[in-house]
């Protein structure tokens, strides 16, 4: 099974290989795409959770930083970026 974004190492860029659009709601999927989270895009997970929680996850996409929940990140498969 491919690694998912919710467990990806912080600070290391990864490439999105697949997103399980069917498992998320229509609106959720659209907002992810509006943020630019799509197959083939490179993202860097930056910060994860606070105090007693693994939620949420802050990512860098290009020059933008966005916050998503771990639940959504778990539907995003990632692969190492090409060296």
């Amino acid at each position, binding site marked *: 099974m491919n690694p998912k974004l919710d467990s990806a190492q912080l600070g290391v860029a990864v490439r999105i290989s697949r997103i399980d659009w069917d498992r998320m709601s229509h*609106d*959720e999927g*659209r*907002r*992810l*795409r*509006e*943020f*630019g989270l*799509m*197959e083939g895009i490179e993202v860097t997970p*930056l*910060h*994860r*959770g*606070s*105090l*007693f*929680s*693994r*939620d*949420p996850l*802050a990512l*860098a*996409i*290009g*020059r*933008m*930083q*966005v*916050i*998503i*929940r771990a*639940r*959504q990140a778990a539907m995003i498969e990632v692969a190492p970026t090409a060296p």
Partner: protein
Amino acid sequence: MTAAIPTIALVGNPNAGKSSLFNALTGARQKIANYPGVTVERKAGHASFADGRPMSLVDLPGSYSLTPASPDEAVTRDVVLGRQAGERRPDALVVVVDAANLDNHLCFALELIALGLPTVVALNMLDLAERDGLTLDPAILSRELGVPVVPTVAVRKRGLTDLLAAVDGAILSHQTQATVQSAPPPSDAALHQRARAIARAATLSENPVRRWTQRVDAVLLHPVAGFLILLALMFVMFQGVYAWSEAPIGWIEGGVGALQGAVDIALPDGFLRGLIIEGILGGVGSVIVFLPQILILFLFILLLEATGYMTRAAFLMDGIMAKVGLSGRGFIPLLSSFACAVPGIMATRAIPDAKDRLTTILIAPLMTCSARLPVYTLIIGAFIPNTNVGGSPVGLQGLVLFGLYLSGIVGALVVALVLRRTVAKGTAAGFMMEMPRYQWPRLRDVGIALWQRAWIFLRRAGTIIFVTTIALWLLLSYPKVPTDSSESQVDYSVAGRIASGLEVVVAPIGFNHDIALALIPAMAAREVAVSALATANAIEAGDDEEAMAQSLSERLQGRWSIATALAFLAWFVFAPQCISTIAITRRETNGWKWPLFMVGYLFALAYAAAGITYWTAVAFGLG
């Protein structure tokens, strides 16, 4: 049609600087802050072209596309597509994009340009793009997009003249060439690909993203340290509210006292002198003295908003908010409710999930708004010793205030938990939010916003608090107690008798006649509780020199037990005593159901909290 004043709408992604541009062009003072979702309503203003022809400018909520995810974004779609009831479709669009984030902002820009309206792109925040090491070519961008592109720095009013000229030109040339091409909308992926390609073409040179903001975030968003810093910031805020306001409060008190003295000498004893000294100066003056504290509180909130820390706070709070079925997104309206619940409730429009939003609206009044400060401060000042906790620099009074704020927050979270399992049941709310870059607060903007708050506070004091206080003074002064009666004037008056009726209901939770008297007019606004106590006190003191010389808090010390005072504080943590909040809740939920529900549950909580506090305190011998 050419004779009509053209309407020009500012559209774009959240936090692109639309409102800053709107303010710069119209001279308006729309709220500006460094987080997405600040503007939640359509707002129109007047501006003019270089030759003086007028135009109507419309500021809109930010959005990522024409498919809305939340109520505020729906407004943007409706205005742009001309679906807003009673509104003409705009004659031109100014698409505001963040120069440092073209990859993303050009997507919405492309969608808007495809509508075929006369369009100009404002390439805003060019200064930040430079700070981040980006060099852009507006000419290439313009060629690729097919519309004029004007570089702007909204907050420094740069590029405004060029922008207006370009808008003028776009409207003119659009009238001569009437071809509108309509292609099927591209897929999200195709749109993004095109946006990235254009951004790459327009980027002449690019340094790697600057790292200092990431180092700051490594600390501020640290799972443990970041959270402690957030708590520390809030703690400093409440200590500051006390520590830094002492001197200015003294000046205002001195001023009001001097005025009272002057009126006392200038006017003969009678109706007018009583009204001015006891009612107006005593009542309204007792509220105005809290202006410094309120401004200090606002200064903190404004700084948090302007720097971009607000979204970081939302990030840190999301874990806790998620446990009660809300999201970090809701933390922002809740934090602004510390200032006032009314704009806080308005700000919930940026929350996508309807149940999440409803719950946030219903708990917003539990956040300690600035109107509670006068009540808290008066009682804390009178009953909590002004000492430091065990030799530390932490003041006990500030600590109690912090505790009251914390009670409100904890109460809100518990209520949210219950609501999300009962009346506002629904799937777990999501949390997706863009995190803005850090910015230095702009002194001018902060200054203006502070001045606005001061003005709003003084206007409140001059209107709703003034009127309620005078009405109360009249009800307290008549009928006059007969000279041979042993009853006091206050007890004998109309208001006093009404209060005696209410006292029966609130006596079990430790409330005395003073409090019963203050509670009813405080329904209009919480601060009135303070002015009501002050007015009743002034009337009671009458011409008794010794009593007049005592301050309100000294008089309260003599009349209330500590248990009663604590119960009174607990009551105000929960009680929904604010007409404006009830009205805005009705408007935002489209009916009376939820505001009535809110008032009901809050009064029930207030009664229980005051009761429990009182009985506990009595058990500890403080009765």
